[in-house]
Each structure stands twice: as C-alpha cells, then as structure tokens.
C-alpha cells in the first residue's frame, strides 16, 4: 500500500488518476488525520480491494488505515465518523478533484517505530529466540530458488521425499526448466521424461494434506509445478567417474513465474561464476565465500576449502565416485553445517550472487558441489534444446 504521496511507481506515475489522488492526499491529509472522530492511523493511495499496486484490474483509490474496521451501522454507536464523510468534508477545500474512491484497511494496531528494542532488564529474553527465516518447506505461489521439491512418481504415497530447487534455466526455444539433482527429481536414473515434480516436497506435507492427497494423481493435480525434462545418469559402476548429479524439469504454468531469479526472499541470482583456478602454490583465484538457500538448513554461508575433489558418495542405489568436485565448509559465522539432507539440489552462489555449483552431497564437516560449468555442459548435452541461459 502507498503510504507516501511521493511514492514513485514508474510508468504508473503517469496515470492522471493516480496523480490526482496524490495531489488530493497532499492537500487533505492533515485535515483527515487530525479529525477527532475518524480514527485514522494513516492515509495513502492504493488499489481498491487489492494488495498489489500493479493490479490494474482494481481502480486507484484513497486508502484509510484504521486500527480496527467497524461495520458501517455501528459507526455512530462507536462515535466514529465514516471515512467517506471525513474525506468528503476534507475535500471541500479542493472540489475540483471530486469525491475520490475510498477503501478502508485494518492495520491491527497503531503504527509504531520498529528499530532496536529497549526494554527493562526484567523483560530480558522476552524478545529472544532465533530470528525467523524463510520456510522453504511450505508451498509457494511464486516459484523461486531454494524451495523444497520432489519427484513423487513411483514412490508416493508409500515413500516421501524432498530436495531443493536449485535455479532456473531457459532453453533455446524459450522454455524454462528448473535444475536440481538427479537423486532429487531423477530418481537416481529411474525417472522418465514427463514425470511430475511437485512443490513442496512430499516429506513436507502435513497429515491433513497427506490424507486429502492420498494418491499420486491427487498430489499431481494440486502440487505439480514441472515435468522432468532431462536426467544426466549417474554411473554407479565400480571404477567409473562422475562429475555431476543433475536433472531438469520443464515448468508448467501452475505457479507464478515472476520471481524465478530470486533466492528465497533475498536478492537475485546474477549469473555464472568462472571456474576456480589456482596459482602455483594452490591459492585459489575466485570468490570463495559462498551461500546457498536450501530446503533444510535454509540460508547458509560457507567457504570453498578444496577443489578437484575426488570422492565416493553413498546413494540409495549404491556408491558412486565423483571427480572435479568443490568442497565447502561452513563459515565461522554460520551456526551448524553448510548443508544437510534435503538441501541437495541447492544452487550455490558466491558473494556476488553468481552461481558456482550445485550442492549434492555432504558429510558432517563438508559439503560437496558439482562445479556449475560442468552442470551447465551436462544439461546442454542431455537436454539438447539449443543454447541454455540462466534465468536472472
């Protein structure tokens, strides 16, 4: 909602109706806010019956913010003057603008400053506890990086799972695909192109949701967001070396796609970082402070501790050996591990929000990631759908 007549909203600013209302606010705000019986906390310009200023299906209007909305027939009993009457009286001083459309919005209380707390020592702890973070395990209307997802085909409802949505790419035909791990949406080579991918992951459904969506078909109808479009096979044969654990799924139109580049509720992914290189002594060239948004541990900060990693990773199917991997340890300021089970598939970004890797495995001390260059090359070969670009 607009709370200042100086709020700029781009092209909409040119809207003459909006300009009229902003002028109206400038001229009448003082009279309205000091009206003894209006009970107004603030006034502004907004869209009638809408929370989004860009929702142009709703007309511009004057919005009055009140602590508590009162039914019109009870206004007199409560000694409250109707917002429309207050506005009408105020606008008598500027009749040229006419009577504007009105909307009343409940704030739930008086506006108060939100800077640092100052409380008596007896209340110490009353506002404590960890700060809330983004719940990546819930259903999101607007898809974005870091959400819990899974491919339930063949497993649900007998088995539940979840991993993380890493990032989005656009193929040569303009179709958008989400990127995650093979073992998250590719069923460790068992998935087929066209399999459903759902958000949130089935492991994060409530008991009620599990009862309501007690078949794979009902689950897909309600939660499907994409269909598997490519799976880069993991080679589980002894002695074979892998480089990536990746699969993609083409987005349907079930959810809002306007925030695909956003990392959780944070900033936007910017691009793809160049591969790490080293000088003769092993000092790495490139930004080694890294971050990820994942379904389980949320937003975490880490540091690249080693590259060129060769190791064996335990999957449900069995062990698979990898090479050319990136090892990450949590930063000193990160409480807990950089990642945990359910974070697989997370896109890892550097401090400039450029992707450096795709998270896929971990131990108690380290996280392993596929280098992003290898991930993109592998998808390019497997998807075979023209040049790929990162959705930024």
């Amino acid at each position, binding site marked *: 909602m607009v709370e200042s007549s100086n709020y700029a909203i781009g092209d909409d600013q040119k809207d003459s109706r909006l300009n009229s209302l902003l002028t109206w606010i400038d001229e009448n705000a003082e009279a309205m806010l000091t009206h003894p019986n209006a009970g107004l906390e603030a006034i502004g310009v907004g869209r009638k019956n809408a929370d989004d200023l860009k929702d142009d299906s709703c007309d511009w209007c004057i919005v009055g913010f009140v602590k508590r909305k009162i039914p019109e027939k009870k206004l007199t009993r409560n000694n409250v003057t109707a917002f429309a009457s207050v506005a009408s009286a105020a606008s008598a001083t500027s009749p040229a603008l006419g009577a504007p459309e009105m909307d009343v919005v409940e704030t739930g209380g008086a506006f108060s400053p939100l800077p640092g707390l100052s409380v008596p020592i007896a209340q110490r702890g009353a506002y404590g506890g960890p700060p809330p973070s983004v719940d990546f395990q819930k259903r999101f209307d607007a898809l974005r990086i870091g959400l819990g997802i899974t491919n339930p085909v063949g497993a649900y409802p007998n088995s539940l799972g979840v991993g993380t949505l890493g990032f989005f790419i656009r193929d040569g035909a303009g179709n958008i695909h989400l990127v995650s791990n093979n073992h998250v949406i590719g069923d460790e080579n068992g998935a087929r192109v066209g399999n459903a991918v759902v958000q949130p992951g089935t492991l994060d459904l409530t008991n009620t949701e599990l009862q309501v969506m007690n078949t794979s078909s009902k689950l897909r109808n309600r939660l499907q967001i994409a269909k598997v479009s490519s799976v880069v096979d993991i080679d589980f044969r002894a002695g074979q*070396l892998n480089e990536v654990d990746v699969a993609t799924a083409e987005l349907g139109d079930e959810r809002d796609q306007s925030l695909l580049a956003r990392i959780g509720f944070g900033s936007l992914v910017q691009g793809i970082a160049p591969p790490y290189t*080293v000088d003769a002594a*092993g000092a790495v060239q490139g930004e080694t402070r890294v971050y990820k948004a994942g379904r389980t541990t949320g937003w975490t900060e880490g540091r690249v*501790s080693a590259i060129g990693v060769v190791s064996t990773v335990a999957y449900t199917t069995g062990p698979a050996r990898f090479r050319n991997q990136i090892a990450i340890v949590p930063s000193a300021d990160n409480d807990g591990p950089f990642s945990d089970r359910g*974070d697989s598939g997370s896109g890892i970004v550097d401090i400039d929000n450029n992707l450096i890797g795709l998270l896929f495995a971990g*131990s*108690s001390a380290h996280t392993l990631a596929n280098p992003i260059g290898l991930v993109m090359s592998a998808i390019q070969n497997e998807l075979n759908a023209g040049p790929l670009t990162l959705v930024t």
Partner: protein
Amino acid sequence: MTRRGIHWDVNRYTVAVVVMAGAAAAGVLTLTSRYDPSDMRKAEAPDILSILSEQPDTIIRMLELDEVDLSLPTDGLGARVLVRVQPGQAATLPKSIVVEHQGALLEVAIEVSETYEKYQAQ
C-alpha cells in the same frame, strides 16, 4: 638415490619409482615409459588439479586405499594433494608420489588427514 621417500633406480634413461610407505614399503609402481630423470619436477597446483581431474585412479591405486578422498586445498599453503583417510591409516602413506602426467614426471606432495567420512547424497 633417495629423495623424499622415493627410491630412484636410474638405469640410463629408465626410471623405476618405488613408493615408500613410511618406514615400510607399501607398494611399488614401475613406470613403463622411458624418462630422463632430469625431466622430473615438483607438481604445482595447476598440475595437481589436472592430475586429480584426469587420472585420480592412478593416485588411488598408488595409495592402495579404497575409502579415501583426494582434493587440492585452496589455502595457498603449498601445492599438495590432501588425502583424507580413516583413523590409523596415515602412517602407511608416503609424503609424496611420482606420477606420469601429460608426458612429464611429476613429484606430487601428499598431506594426509585421518578425517575421512563417506559423503552421503543429501
């Protein structure tokens, strides 16, 4: 000659490389190609990155360990392969190994850490 735990048996242009395992020999790698010993040099970090990428199994075979992971630390404290092994296995490993890579004979420094943990797909 003996150099950093590696025994060189020079027979004109043929070099046999013996990988020592601490005090006791853990294994022997004989290179089949002919090399001039003067070709050998210490591996720098880019060499190690390339070896880890192109022939990690060579190193794993030389170390004679299955449960191991290899990496290039990015701390700038020297070019070496960090070998994570299970507790009790460090004493059996050499301080360096010699690898034939891209036509060159490279002495690769080894740092052993008994902190191996199997990675789990997350």
